[in-house]
């Protein structure tokens, strides 16, 4: 008991965002008495499930030093295809789900092939597919499919043990990915590639195949998220599904402590990031903050959130697995230079280090 308490304490110590999240929830709850009601939370979780389903694999991609900006459009494509399959009589829910995942994976294959084997900047490549795939989705269904019937609908609103299926699935996904990152060699290679691709290459790591796989995973997950969304909406408007979602997902990932320069981050952080975004939006609504002020507030909240996480990082000693003297993260020259909290020259891209 007390030990688990202690563990929780250490957890808080490591994730200031989590503290911020808890404070946020407490404040909103006290002021509105509404946030912690189950129906409200369930709504937040439904949204977060979709974000998480994409943010989790996206985080891995960013850790490996890559990025995928096309997730929003891929979500649309997945939704559109799932919807169409679900509408054709023969399409069982499972088939629809698989179709969506497959479609997403295909986008991932394109992004991955060009960005890894083709050595193009994944930022631009996926900026391209962001536009192209959206267009493709709209070509596929200029007018939205809809009214899918209970089977497919269950994906969106179905409950298992009072919790929506999509939530279960996304949680499962995160757990699997977290285990993968932390406890499989390939998982560690993801970090290694992000930290120092050349050294990784010279250590016999597949510096192209691994990121390629992550692109495919990211696409597939986006497709799955599309199916969730379509099922929940009971409709798949190609022009609107997941519009601008790349920024939401990326924000969650960065809030979660993943560095855009790669090599740094964890699934736990991403989960907190996703929940923070979801509960912040929800809180602002519950607090009846007016439309435009909501935008101002959420923008500022984002900045405050990273500021706090970073602040704490500056004072927090590096965790050492054993009782050896913990050396505080960086000081020395860098501590006056902007490269600050980051001695690795590879990680010099300030713009990108979160």
């Amino acid at each position, binding site marked *: 008991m007390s030990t688990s308490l202690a563990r929780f304490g250490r957890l808080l110590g490591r994730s200031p965002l989590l503290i911020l999240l808890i404070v946020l929830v407490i404040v909103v709850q006290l002021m509105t008495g509404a946030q912690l009601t189950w129906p409200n939370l369930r709504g937040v979780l439904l949204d977060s499930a979709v974000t998480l389903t994409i943010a989790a694999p996206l985080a891995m991609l960013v850790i490996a030093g890559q990025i995928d900006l096309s997730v929003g459009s891929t979500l649309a494509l997945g939704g559109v295809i799932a919807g169409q399959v679900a509408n054709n009589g023969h399409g069982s829910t499972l088939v629809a789900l698989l179709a969506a995942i497959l479609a997403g994976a295909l986008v991932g294959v394109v992004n991955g092939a060009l960005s890894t084997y083709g050595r193009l900047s994944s930022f631009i490549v996926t900026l391209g597919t962001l536009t192209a795939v959206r267009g493709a989705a709209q070509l596929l269904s200029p007018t939205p499919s809809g009214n899918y019937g209970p089977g497919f609908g269950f994906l969106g609103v179905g409950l298992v043990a009072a919790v929506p299926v999509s939530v279960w699935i996304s949680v499962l996904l995160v757990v699997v990915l977290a285990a993968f990152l932390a*406890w*499989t*060699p*390939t998982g*560690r*290679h993801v*970090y*290694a590639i992000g*930290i*120092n691709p*050349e*050294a*990784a*290459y*010279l*250590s*016999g*790591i*597949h510096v192209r195949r691994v990121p390629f796989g992550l692109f495919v995973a990211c696409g597939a997950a986006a497709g799955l998220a599309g199916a969730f969304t379509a099922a929940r909406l009971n409709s798949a408007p190609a022009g609107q599904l997941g519009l601008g979602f790349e920024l939401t997902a990326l924000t969650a990932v960065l809030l979660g402590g993943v560095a855009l320069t790669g*090599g*740094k981050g964890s699934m736990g952080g991403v989960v907190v990031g996703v929940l923070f975004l979801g509960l912040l939006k929800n809180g602002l609504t519950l607090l009846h903050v007016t439309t435009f002020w909501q935008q101002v507030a959420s923008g500022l909240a984002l900045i405050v959130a990273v500021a706090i996480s970073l602040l704490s990082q500056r004072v927090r*000693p*590096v*965790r*050492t*697995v*054993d009782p*050896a*003297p*913990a*050396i*505080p993260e960086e*000081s*020395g*020259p860098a*501590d*006056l*230079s902007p490269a600050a909290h980051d*001695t*690795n*020259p*590879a*990680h010099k891209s300030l713009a990108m280090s979160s």
Partner: protein
Amino acid sequence: MTVSVSKLTKRYGATLALDSVDLTFRSGEVHALLGHNGAGKSTLIGCLGGGTTPTAGSIEIDGVVTEGLTPGSAIKAGIAVIYQHLSVMDGLSVMDNIFLGQELHRGPLIDRSAQRLRASELLGRVKSSARPDDLVGDLSMGQRQLVEIAKALERDARLLILDEPTASLSARESEALGQLVLQLKTEGIAIVYVTHLLEEVMRLADQVSVLRNGRKVWSHTIEGIGKSDLVTAISGEQSGFGVPEPVSPDAPVVLGLSGIEVHDAPPVDLKVHAGEAVALYGLIGAGRTRLLETLFGARAGARGELRVDGQPIRIPRDPAEAIARGIGFVPSDRKTQGLFPDFSALENTVLAVQRHRGHGLWRSARWERELFTAVASGMRLNPSAPGLPARSFSGGNQQKLVIGRWVNPASSIRVLLLDDPTQGVDVGAREEIYRILRQEAHTRQIAILFATNEPEEVLALGHRCLIMAQGRILREIRCADSSPEQLLDIVHSAVPSAPAGVR
């Protein structure tokens, strides 16, 4: 000018990098600063350069105590530092680098013609073959080093600090640099010279000071001092590098190259027997790195016959394939090619062998910890902290981590290739690294092929030494019958030297 530090102290969390150090550097004097890895040399230099803020103590320049030194004010005060990790910028021209932060300008605009003139003047003075408009990225390490010095001179430095300037230079380049240092000394510049190479100390230094664990433990003028005294002062105990065990005459060939052609270079044949270590010794651009990289599959476009344990294999297409064939490689540039700075020491060591663990795709904390402990104790890693990020270790200990990646109980390599295995590693750590490599070769009966620029290293590690120049093996020497002097002679002798430029 005279710069002196008193009671200088720098603390990094639990580490006392500098522990109230008193030192004085005078003009016209080369002051060698020695000490094992992590002794605090670079930290001291960081303080003098203004980049690192001391925790306590003071810095006096010509008798004036200077508070809160910043890089800017240090430069203005005439202190120029050439940092251990070069600070020239690949993407910029030689000229831009030399004048970075101190541009000559007419009105608001840079006066390029004036800069070009001044630059070629300075480059001439440091005997560099580079030209003002060349991209630094295209220069060899040695040339970059010279550009750094030219940059320092441009800031008319009166105290010039060089942190392990020859670590990545070929013998020929180091020699030239030494000459330059002596010349600058005669011009009345005070010079602080950090190195791990006692050869250089004996050749260049007037004054020698030794740091150990952040404390100044020894300071002396060079007169009447011998290498052995230095070794004692640095490591605290008498010690030598030792020599390798003889190879049994009937040892089978583990690594065999016949007619390996790398690009335009002529074909190379060589054999390395079980338990044997062969040195590739040569001039800049001799082709050693290229050869090693080729054998490891890191460089495309080579032809020829390659055998491991008698089995003919195709030249690896990539490192993964090489590793699968039992070949390991320790690259020359630790920082960019070897280390994962943000990874823990443990992860840096186990990375390449994680897969070899028998059961399942999952890692095992216990297995990895045991492996790390074996490596750490075998190499006397300091600190032996599995969770400490690699970037927080000193150069020598970082190198141990990189070598440990191949030299560990779980590794199944048959051939170990090393490029400059002890670059920037102190005598103590070196001795350990040599010992561990010799032991590895002997007990596991693997083949070691390594490139180096240091005679001592050739003899401490190698059974045979191959002299290379321009991709060609000129001659072979049995190390047992050789001496550092002989090897140095070879470098200085009229071996056709490759153009110093390209990299």
